[in-house]
C-alpha cells in the first residue's frame, strides 16, 4: 500500500505541471487583450500600453509562465488583474465556500445513494428497484439548474421555507448556514443520487445472486445476515469509485448552481476569471482544483483497494 501511495503521489506534480501548461496555452490562444478588458473600451491606447508594460504582458510567453510558476511554488500567487486583490486569499476563500457546499451535498448524497442502491439491488427487478432506478435516472437526466429553479420557485419564492440566496449573512450560526445551503445542496443530491445508486445496485444485485451469498444462505443465515456479512462490503466496492467521480463534479462543476443561488464558490470564480482573462486567478484556481481532483481520485482508489483485497494484494494464485 505504501508503495502504491508513493507511486501515485509522484505523478501529482507532473500532472499539475501539465494542467498549468494547458490553462496557460488556452488563455494565450483566446483572443482579447487583458489590459483592454481591465481598462474598458474607452481607455486610450497609451494607457492600455502602460498597463501592459506594468503587467509585463509583452514579454515572451515562457518568461511569463516561468515567472508565474516560480511565484506559485513559493507561495506568491500574484494579484488579480481585474479585482486587484491577492489571488491566494481569493482562491482560498472561494475554495472554502465550495468545499462547504460540496461537503453538505456529499454528506447527504453518500448514505442516501448507497442505501437506495443497496435496497434496489437486494430487491432487484421488484417494485422498489424499479422506482429507485427509474427515479434516479429521471432526476439524473434533469440538469441541476432546472431542478434548482424549480426548488427556488416552490420552496423559496412561493412557500418561503428557505432563502433564495445560498450565502448566509456574515457571522451566522451553523444552522443558518445549513438552512441557506439546503436548496442548492438538494438540487445537487437529486442530480447525483441516481448515478451512485445505479452503481451500488448493480454490485449488490450481482452479489446477492452470487455463489457465496447462496452458500451463506444454505448455511442457515437469514437474508438480512447474508446482506450484512457478505453483500454489503462487496457492493460498496463500485460505490467508492462512483462517489469519487461525483465528489469531483461537486467541487468544480457547480458553476450553474453557484450562479443560480448567488453563491461565491470556486466554479463561479473560475468562470469569471476565464471570461476576464484574469490569468493569475485562473491559473491558481485551476491548479488548486487539479490538486483536489487528484486527491479525490487517489482517495477513491485507496478506498477501492481497502474494500477489495483482490486489488490490494494482487492475484497470487490463478
Amino acid at each position, binding site marked *: 500500500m505504501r508503495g502504491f501511495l508513493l507511486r501515485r503521489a509522484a505523478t501529482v506534480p507532473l500532472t499539475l505541471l501539465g494542467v498549468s501548461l494547458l490553462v496557460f496555452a488556452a488563455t494565450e490562444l483566446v483572443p482579447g487583450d487583458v489590459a483592454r478588458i481591465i481598462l474598458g473600451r474607452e481607455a486610450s491606447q497609451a494607457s492600455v500600453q502602460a498597463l501592459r508594460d506594468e503587467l509585463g504582458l509583452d514579454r515572451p510567453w515562457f518568461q511569463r509562465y516561468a515567472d508565474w510558476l516560480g511565484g506559485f511554488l513559493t507561495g506568491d500567487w500574484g494579484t488579480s488583474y481585474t479585482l486587484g486583490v491577492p489571488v491566494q486569499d481569493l482562491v482560498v476563500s472561494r475554495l472554502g465556500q465550495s468545499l462547504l457546499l460540496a461537503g453538505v451535498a456529499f454528506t447527504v448524497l453518500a448514505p442516501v445513494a448507497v442505501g437506495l442502491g443497496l435496497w434496489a439491488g437486494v430487491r432487484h427487478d421488484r417494485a422498489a428497484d424499479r422506482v429507485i432506478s427509474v427515479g434516479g435516472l429521471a432526476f439524473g437526466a434533469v440538469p441541476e439548474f432546472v431542478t434548482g429553479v424549480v426548488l427556488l420557485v416552490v420552496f423559496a419564492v412561493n412557500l418561503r421555507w428557505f432563502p433564495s440566496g445560498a450565502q448566509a449573512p456574515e457571522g451566522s450560526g451553523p444552522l443558518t448556514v445549513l438552512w441557506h445551503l439546503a436548496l442548492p445542496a438538494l438540487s445537487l443530491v437529486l442530480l447525483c443520487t441516481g448515478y451512485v445508486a445505479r452503481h451500488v445496485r448493480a454490485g449488490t444485485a450481482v452479489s446477492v445472486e452470487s455463489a457465496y451469498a447462496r452458500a451463506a444462505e444454505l448455511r442457515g443465515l437469514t437474508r438480512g445476515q447474508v446482506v450484512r*456479512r457478505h453483500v454489503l462490503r*462487496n457492493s460498496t466496492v463500485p460505490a467508492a469509485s462512483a462517489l469519487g467521480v461525483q465528489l469531483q463534479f461537486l467541487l468544480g462543476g457547480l458553476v450553474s448552481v453557484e450562479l443560480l443561488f448567488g453563491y461565491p464558490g470556486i466554479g463561479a470564480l473560475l468562470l469569471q476569471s476565464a471570461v476576464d482573462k484574469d490569468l493569475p486567478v485562473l491559473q491558481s484556481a485551476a491548479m488548486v482544483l487539479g490538486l483536489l481532483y487528484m486527491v479525490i481520485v487517489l482517495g477513491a482508489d485507496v478506498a477501492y483497494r481497502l474494500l477489495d*483485497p483482490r486489488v490490494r494484494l494482487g492475484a497470487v*494464485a490463478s
Partner: protein
Amino acid sequence: MIAVDGLSVAYQGVEIVREVSFTVAPGRTYGLVGESGSGKTTLGRALGRTGGDITAGRISVDGTDVLALSPRELRAWRASSLAVVHQEAGAALDPTMRVGAQLAGALRVQGRPRGDVADLLEKVRLPGEAARRYPHQLSGGQRQRVVIAAALAGRPRLLVLDEPTTGLDATVEHEILDLIWALRADIGAAVVLISHDLALVGRLCDDVGVLYAGRLVEEGPAARVLSAPRHPYTKALIDSAPRIGADSVPAAIPGQPPAPGEAPPGCAFAPRCAAADDRCRTVPPGLADGARCHHPGARAVVPVPALPHRRQEVTPLIEVRNLTRAYGRTRVLDDVSLSIGRNEIVGLVGESGSGKTTLARAVAGLGRRGGGVITLDGAELPVEVGRRDPATRRRVSMVFQDSDASLNPSHTVRTILARALGGPERVEELAALAALEPHLLDVRPHRLSGGQKQRVAIARAFAGRPDLIVCDEPVSALDVSVQAGVLRTLADQQALTGVSYLFISHDLAVVCQLADRVAVMSGGRIVEEGPAERILREPRHPYTIGLLRAAGHEPSQRRRHVH
C-alpha cells in the same frame, strides 16, 4: 436417511426435473450423473430448497419433511442438517473476507467457537496460516478445501456435492476426492454427489442414478450400472468417454438432448437411440429393473473400433527452439523446444500454469515477446501475428477453448465463415467439413449448443487451408458425448487434408486418443516427449506417471516386462 419421492422442479413453469425418487442411507454415497441440461444441478439445489419451484413430491431427511418447513424452521434445518459444496469453489467464498473469518462465520452458525477454525483447516489438510489468506490468494484446490471445511463446521445429515472437482486439474481433483472419501465416514452423513463424470461417480459412489432430460433413466449399485448398463443412454455415455488404453474410440451420441419442456411424448432418449421403435416414440417407459427403457440392454450407438496409431516418417513443419517467455519475474516458458511435422498431430498435456497455452499462443503469433525462435518450413516466423505476411498467417490457424468469446455474437455462422474464406462461395463446403448441419448457417452463435459452436470454430480454422491448426483445449468445455463427436471430426479432417495439429489439453485420455506424439509440460518445461503409445505404456517422468494415475490408468505394471 434421505428419501426423495416423486420430486418435480420447475423454472418459470418449465419442468426441469420430473418425478425423481431415490433414497440414500447415512454413510452411503449416491451419485447423480447427467450431462448439461439434464437437470442435475436443479435437483441438487432443490435438495436444499433453493433454485426452482418444487411442483410435486417429497424430500425427507431423517424423518423431517423438508418441503413442509416454515422459513424459520428451514434456516434452522439448513444450519443443523445440510452442507453443500458447489462447483467453482472460488465463487462460494466471499472475495472480500479472509478465509479464517469465513470459517468462523460458518462455525458461529453452529454455536462453535472461533478457535475451531484451526481444527477445520487441519481436517481438510490445509496449513493454519491459510486462515489469514483471502480466497484469491489460494489455488483452486485449496479454495475447494476451504469450502469443504465450511461444510464440516456442523454435523450435516445430508451432504450435497455438486460437481466438486470440475475445473480442477487432474492431480488436484484426485486429492480433493481422496479427502472427501476419507472424511465421508467421519461425517456419517448421506452424501449426494452430482457429476457429469460417470467414471468418477463409479469410483466414489455406492449407488448411481443417471439423469436424462430431468428423469432418472437408470438406477442401481454403481458397480452394476457401470459394468452392465441396462439403459442405452447409460451405455452410450460410458462409450463416449475417452479411456486410456481402450480398444474402441469414444463414440459420440448423435443429436442433442431435448430442450427443457420440449421432451417428446415417449421415451425422451428415443430420437437419439438406434434401438428405438414406435413404442419408444409414443409410450413413456416406466422404471423397471433399474432402467426406464422398453429395450433394456440395447445399444444406442454402434461402437467404432480404434485405429492403430500411425507410424510414419515426418518432415518437420514447425520448429520451436529454446522458447522463453516471462510474465514479470515468473518464467512461464523455460527454454522449450518442440517440433511438429507435416501430417502430424502433436498433443501437448499439462496442468493449469504449466505454460501450455503460452506455448500455443506463441506458435499462433499471439502473446508477448521473449527469447527463442519459431520456424515454419525453415523460415523464421515473426513473433507477432501482425508482422507475419498474409500468406504465412493463413498457414497457421487456431481453435480456442472458449468458442463463446471467439465467435462474433452479432454475425450469423454464414457471415463468420464467409469472412474467414474471403467470399461466400465455399461456405457450405466448409460447414460440411466440420459436420455442421446446413440449417445452422443462418443462425447466430448464441442459438448454438457448445458442440456446434466449436464446430463453427473448427470450420473457420480450416478456411485458409492451413498447414497447422493450434487447438487450445477445444473440447474441454463440452459434455463427453459431444466431445467424442468433435474429436472425431478433428481426426477425420486431419486424415483427409493432411494438416498438422498442435493439440493442447489437460486431459491425457483425450490427447492420447488423437495424438501421434505427446509432449508433457510442467512448470514451463517439456518434461517428457515421445510417441503417444510409448508415453502410455512406459512413461518415464514421475509427473507423467502422476498424470496417468490421476486419469485412472496404472501405467507401470507392464514396464518391468519391457526392460
